[in-house]
């Protein structure tokens, strides 16, 4: 059955290949294909979490001559703690035979551009130099012919393939994207214009498989993606990429909730056609709060410039957030806000802070015997749960199915505030006290007090016999 499917897929691919050859009457296509192929690699790593191991692999593009490889941030989800990722590899496909495997280091994520970076940690086995691909900010116009060269899934031996398409529309959601008529090679593949310049990267959408070592990857070939992100959106990553041990420091404003101002509201406020966003809420003690931004303020300008337009009002907060991410912590930004209808704009200078620690960087503890894992709280936990500022505790991150903890009624995302009648301060204390109790009284139940949706409840976990 599986074999059948593979053969069908292969047959389809041959058809695609033949079609492509026909389309490119001269040898331009072949030249591009030959030039680009050496820049395409596979990145692979192991996600070892509390419940098991997962091997993840996706397409990567060589971007510098020292073996730096760019790939999609989606492959290195921000939910995965760095400590759980290991055995990074760069696979260099070969025309005949298994790809060369090179050890690699994880250089980090760039949330400004939705890219992640790996770097080879050993010399190439074939002794060839790295062939970096240079992206350029060249806008594409409707009707332009473009091409893409991508990486086929593992099931078809990580071969590269070539596709042609026509620019159909330019879109402006959170991320600018270009829609094509026909179809593009797999996610994270480079896109070229008629001059052979790399002008974009195929967008990652949820419908298309990002992992190319899983059978689902074949779906991407059956229904190829149709959107790419123009290089203008991610060039910044190459001039200032994250480096191992030096994660990018992201700026922080402290406005977790914003809404794009709808046309009717803008008209009512006399804003006319100007794009604007409304501040939904401001977290206490953040740069925004300190600068005096308030709930309900309507932001109309950043550093004197109007906000970037989106296709819909609801895209505006995402566009604004991405715009803010491109500043540096410590930088001063002036936001012009409308506070009351009919009043002139108020300029509010804000000194951006540094983004506070995120859940994936919080310290974690895994109670294997009872089958639950916890992590330290971070600022955003406090905010979303509406907790008092000084509330302490640890958050349940993971539960093993049918474990003692799960059957006792512990839920993922529960905030544990007490362990055996003692208040929980942080992960380290919790781990210490938990282990001490289990060693001391292995047959006694662990009694936790947890907060869930604002309600407290007691959870008594019977130890496994």
């Amino acid at each position, binding site marked *: 059955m599986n074999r059948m499917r593979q053969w069908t897929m292969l047959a389809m691919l041959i058809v695609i290949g033949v079609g492509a050859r026909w389309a490119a009457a001269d040898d331009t296509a072949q030249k591009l294909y030959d030039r680009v192929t050496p820049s395409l690699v596979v990145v692979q790593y192991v996600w070892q979490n509390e419940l098991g191991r997962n091997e993840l692999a996706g397409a990567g593009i060589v971007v510098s001559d020292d073996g730096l490889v760019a790939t999609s941030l989606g492959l290195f989800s921000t939910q995965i703690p760095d400590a759980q990722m290991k055995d990074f590899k760069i696979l260099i496909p070969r025309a005949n035979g298994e790809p060369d495997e090179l050890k690699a280091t994880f250089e980090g994520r760039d949330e400004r551009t939705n890219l992640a970076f790996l770097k080879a940690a050993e010399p190439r086995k074939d002794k060839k130099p790295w062939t970096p691909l240079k992206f350029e900010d060249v806008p594409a116009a409707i009707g332009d012919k473009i091409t893409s060269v991508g990486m086929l899934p593992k099931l078809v031996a990580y071969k590269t393939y070539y596709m042609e398409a026509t620019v159909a529309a330019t879109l402006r959601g959170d991320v600018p994207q270009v829609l094509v008529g026909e179809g593009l090679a797999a996610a994270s593949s480079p896109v070229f214009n008629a001059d052979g310049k790399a002008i974009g990267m195929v967008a990652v959408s949820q419908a298309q498989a990002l992992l190319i070592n899983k059978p689902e990857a074949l779906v991407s070939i059956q229904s190829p993606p149709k959107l790419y992100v123009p290089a203008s959106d991610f060039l910044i990553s190459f001039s200032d990429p994250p480096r191992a041990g030096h994660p990018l420091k992201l700026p922080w404003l402290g406005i977790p909730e914003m809404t794009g101002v709808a046309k*009717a509201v803008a008209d*009512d*406020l006399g804003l006319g056609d100007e794009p604007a966003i409304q501040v*939904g809420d401001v977290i206490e003690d953040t740069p925004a709060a300190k600068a005096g931004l308030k709930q309900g303020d309507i932001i109309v300008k950043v550093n004197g410039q109007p906000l970037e337009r989106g296709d819909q009002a609801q895209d505006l907060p995402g566009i604004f957030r991405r715009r803010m991410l491109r500043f540096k912590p410590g930088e001063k930004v002036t936001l012009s806000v409308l506070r009351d209808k009919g009043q002139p704009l108020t300029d509010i200078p804000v000194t951006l802070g540094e983004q506070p620690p995120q859940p994936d960087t919080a310290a974690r503890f895994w109670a294997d015997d009872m089958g639950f894992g916890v992590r330290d709280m971070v600022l955003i936990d406090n905010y979303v749960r*509406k907790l008092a500022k000084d509330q302490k505790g640890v958050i349940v991150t993971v539960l093993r199915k049918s474990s003692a903890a799960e059957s006792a009624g512990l839920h993922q995302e529960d905030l544990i505030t007490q362990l055996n009648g003692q208040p929980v301060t942080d992960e380290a204390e919790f781990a210490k006290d938990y282990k001490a109790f289990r060693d001391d009284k292995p047959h006694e139940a662990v009694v936790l007090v947890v907060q869930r949706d604002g*309600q407290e*409840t007691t959870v008594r976990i019977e130890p496994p016999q």
Partner: protein
Amino acid sequence: MIAKWRDWLRRRLEFEIVHLRSGYLMHSKKLVGHGGQHTLVRIINTFAGWRPGALGRIICCAALAGMLAGCAAAQAGADAPTTEPFPPATPQAVVAVSKQIFPAVVRIDVAQEIYRDGKRTVQRGIGSGVIIDDDGHILTNFHVAGRAAELYVTLYTKERVSAKLIGDDHWTDLAIIQMNANEVKAKNIKFTHVEFGESKTLIPGQDVMAIGTPFGLARTMTLGTVSNSERTFYDPNDPDGGMHIDEYETGEFSNWIQMDTPINPGNSGGPLVDMTGKLIGINTRGGGQNLNFAIPVDTAKEVIAKILATATPEKKGRVDRSDLGIDLMPLQDLEAFYSVDINHGVLVNNVERLGAAEKAGVKSQDILLSVDNKPTNVRFPEELAPTRKMIADIPIGTTVELTVKRGKQILHLTAVTLKLQSAVGEEKEYKDWGISAREVTRAYANEQQLDDAQGVVVTTMSGGYPAAEAELEPGDIIREVDGKPVTDLDEFTKLYDESRKSNEKNVLLNIQRGRARISAVLKMAD
């Protein structure tokens, strides 16, 4: 053929059991009401669920049920002791009781008020009821006749008369309606009323009969036995989950009678009687083919008395209860941990914000020992309902002494009870704007972690109307209309009416969505 039907029955049973379980495990924050709103299948037949072809299944279902009942009756007749007060279902007794009870049982055709797509509309359904006095008062379920806009009653004689909702109480899922006396007189209709029995003396194994209108099949009698007389649906994995029918909190103040008497959608509100023909319960829920549940008559007696005492020609009768705003948890296996004697006190699992106990200084993890010196001992889940009822029965606004144990200390705290509120507030339609909205009650605010109980919450919306155009969403809380604060549903209605009268072109709303505040403009049609 039979095998096929049996298969269908089994699948149906499995489905319903899965339904039941998922109802408990689910803890989604729905718009209103905490979680599993379809906890168990409610036994009301609605036209929405009526499909051609269903009748065939029902008949087969009934045939099987009849076979089962027949067996049970034969066995009961052969083996059961004949001593009172648990007379067995001898064939003679079954026939005698049927004859006695049928003239007191009615079919109820109802149009219940519901809000859908931003509009007030009705949903039609069929249920059952039992006549309780010579004035033509009929006891039924809240989920049958509560929120009724139209009511018709079909009697044993097959005559049909209109009826009126007298009062209801969703906490116990009971409602009282009354037949139109003039119509009864004009049509010269004769009826009898049921005799009340006692539910506290019920024992598992006792034979019982149910009469009702399953799937619209009026005057259907079925036979079975009490399986358990103090069933609770408390789930330690979801202590806050409780029980809901539709969105309404139900069953917190009494345990249930569980019986294997076959009941089906449409049986809801009908009587469960013992083999002397006395009313012992109101058939309410079915969890599967032989897992059925009735509200005990002892609960019903109190509710009837309260509803009839408060009902006036203008206003529905109701049951008022006190609330301390605490969530209680049985102490089983936790006694040593909290250093309390076995069967002494109850764990305060959660103290609600804005509640009476919070004001009195009660903290979660306290052990509540007594309320006004009445002990609150809950070791087992079955003891929760009686304790909750004891608190609920205190007159609203009473100052009570709460004795709590906190660590080694014994504290005497003073609380003033508040009126028990549902998370489901009063609802109205606002046609021109294309929304229906509900009062934000204290209970709703608590459940949704709102900072206060101000404003109204949008429940449903009509596409193409100003609110939908302005991208409002169900769950949004409207806090201001044209800059004026919305305190409650009455105030909102007032502001809506004013805005309509002034023919405003643009209405500026201030909306609370999650923690954000949003401005929205309703553009009114010319």
